[in-house]
């Protein structure tokens, strides 16, 4: 029953999300639509970290490295090809390959959690310095000038596949971005339900145990890390379409933000980080219009408050509140087992024969 509940909820959520995505452009002004697209690209970036950190237990401090690489690859390739079709493909492949290479050294070298954080952070800061230093004519890739700290202001917008003449309008890019977010969200849920995903989750729970069962944990970690890298690359493409690419994409600012979004939304959930990313950006944008409030201070304050008061994040708290409400309702559907995070409800298996070992178990 619990499973059917969840499927039902998912379908309702999907329809609601699709409706909102469809209606939004007719309600909002152009500027707001572009902003919404930026939020969605950030939500995809948050989702990519939710996969590798929340599901895989790999805390990367450098998720923005893949985001920036995706953006730059897209811009450089689109300028050179004149057509964005292959640029999009390349902008997924390059961050994925970069993640695979970095991941290979990290996981095959058996580098521990803390050092993994240091290495990924250092990597993205090196890229930040590197791209900042690309001012001048010497730094061109084909027709594209990398432009140092100015980035590439002339980042071309997406066009219809193999149809260079038809550049997409902001509304259309919004549909693509929001559609991709939906696709990635449900895709990630599917991924985590596959055999691969379940082993990945087991590694987060107890890496040594999974190893002693005979799974080569390095491959699974590399797999999820690479998938997360490709997804962050897509976020970079969408961001490049709304703004333009510049070295700030690699900056500490973005790296820290993603971690805050995932923490606030709930590590270990997929929906939470999306909510966290969108809600916090809306909040900060709102506060930015007021005088005398530094958005960065607000961001920091929110992180500290959440870590102290709601360490599990928004989604797990909402989920367990929901479960508790259902448990209290007069017609309980069935004492279904709590799936992930839920209050420890003692249950009595009335209909089932009691095995000997429950005697001392107190269940």
């Amino acid at each position: 029953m619990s499973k059917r509940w969840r499927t039902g909820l998912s379908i309702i959520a999907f329809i609601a999300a699709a409706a909102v995505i469809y209606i939004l452009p007719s309600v909002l002004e152009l500027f707001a639509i572009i902003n919404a697209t930026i939020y969605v690209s950030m939500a995809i970036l948050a989702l990519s970290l939710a996969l590798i950190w929340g599901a895989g237990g790999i805390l990367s401090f450098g998720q923005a490295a893949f985001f920036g690489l995706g953006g730059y690859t897209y811009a450089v390739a689109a300028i050179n090809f004149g057509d964005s079709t292959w640029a999009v493909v390349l902008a997924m492949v390059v961050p994925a390959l970069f993640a695979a290479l970095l991941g290979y050294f990290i996981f095959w070298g058996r580098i521990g959690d803390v050092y993994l954080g240091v290495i990924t952070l250092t990597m993205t800061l090196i890229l930040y310095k590197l791209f900042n230093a690309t001012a001048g004519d010497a730094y061109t890739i084909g027709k594209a000038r990398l432009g140092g700290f100015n980035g590439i202001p002339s980042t071309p917008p997406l066009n219809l596949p193999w149809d260079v003449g038809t550049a997409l309008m902001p509304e259309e890019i919004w549909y693509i971005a929001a559609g991709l977010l939906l696709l990635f969200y449900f895709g990630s849920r599917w991924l985590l339900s596959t055999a691969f995903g379940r082993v990945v989750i087991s590694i987060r729970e107890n890496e040594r145990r999974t190893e002693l069962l005979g799974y080569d944990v390095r491959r699974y970690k590399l797999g999820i890390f690479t998938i997360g890298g490709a997804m962050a690359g897509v976020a970079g493409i969408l961001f490049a379409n709304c703004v333009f690419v510049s070295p700030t994409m690699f900056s500490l600012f973005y790296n820290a933000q993603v971690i805050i979004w995932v923490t606030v939304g709930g590590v270990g959930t997929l929906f939470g980080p999306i909510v966290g990313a969108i809600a916090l950006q809306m909040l900060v944008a709102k506060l930015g219009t007021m005088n005398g409030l530094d958005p960065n201070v607000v961001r920091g304050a929110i992180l500290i408050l959440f870590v102290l008061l709601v360490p599990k994040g928004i989604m797990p708290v909402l989920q367990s509140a929901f479960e508790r409400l259902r448990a209290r309702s007069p017609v309980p559907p069935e004492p279904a087992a709590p799936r992930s995070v839920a209050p420890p409800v003692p249950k009595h298996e009335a209909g089932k024969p009691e095995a000997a070992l429950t005697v001392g178990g107190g269940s």
Partner: protein
Amino acid sequence: MNALAAVPVAQPTIRKAIIETRGLVMRFGGVEVLRGIDFGIVPGELRCLVGPNGAGKSTFFKCLTGQYQPSGGDIRFKGEQIGGLPSVDIARRGIGIKTQVPSLYDGLTAREHIWLAVRRSVATAGGFGREVNAAVEKVLETMGIAHLADRIVGQLAHGQRQMVELAMVTAAQPDLILLDEPAAGMTHDEVERLAALVLSLRGTCSLIVVEHDMQFIRMIARTVTVLHQGQVLMEDNVETVLRDRRVRDVYLGKREVV
């Protein structure tokens, strides 16, 4: 003296042994925890390994499963050298371990635990999802934990957790199972049930059981190996070992042994 002390009951020849160590040494800095262990069991055998705290039992298991790289000596499993291989490779060759501190996935259900173990062995043999799921249900049933299947393992009582881990280890169908203090923290009923399960496994696979609970050892053991200060002190059938004065001295902490 070690080899001489052993009675020929289960003294394996090199060819027959499923697992065999020769002069196994494990050093941590200047401390020699295993000091040349010669040990072996034949396929299908159930061997108990006893010894006071610090005798090197858990270290021995960690060497066998690749969690430690031995400092010296040989480990042969099914005739092949496995000393120093990574844990994954050793697990894949067919050694499963239940560790001393239960090593479980606290956020997952019992069914997920069994699934992870079954899936590895069935998928390796070319099986598909449906076969895996059927095998999972069967293991839950035969191990008597079907009623716990959907419970989050982090919320189970200690004895139940032990059973889940044991079920998981056997579900992977290893040829050799190492059990490190499986009866620890169990109630008397649970211990009896555990003993029945362990005895039912005998014959289908080989087992080495480390245990302090002498009641439990009497229930399951035939041959017992006694470790003391990183060496094999004696190896004999269970009654002889438990009667032996040296073994009692070792357990009660008398220093001047042999």
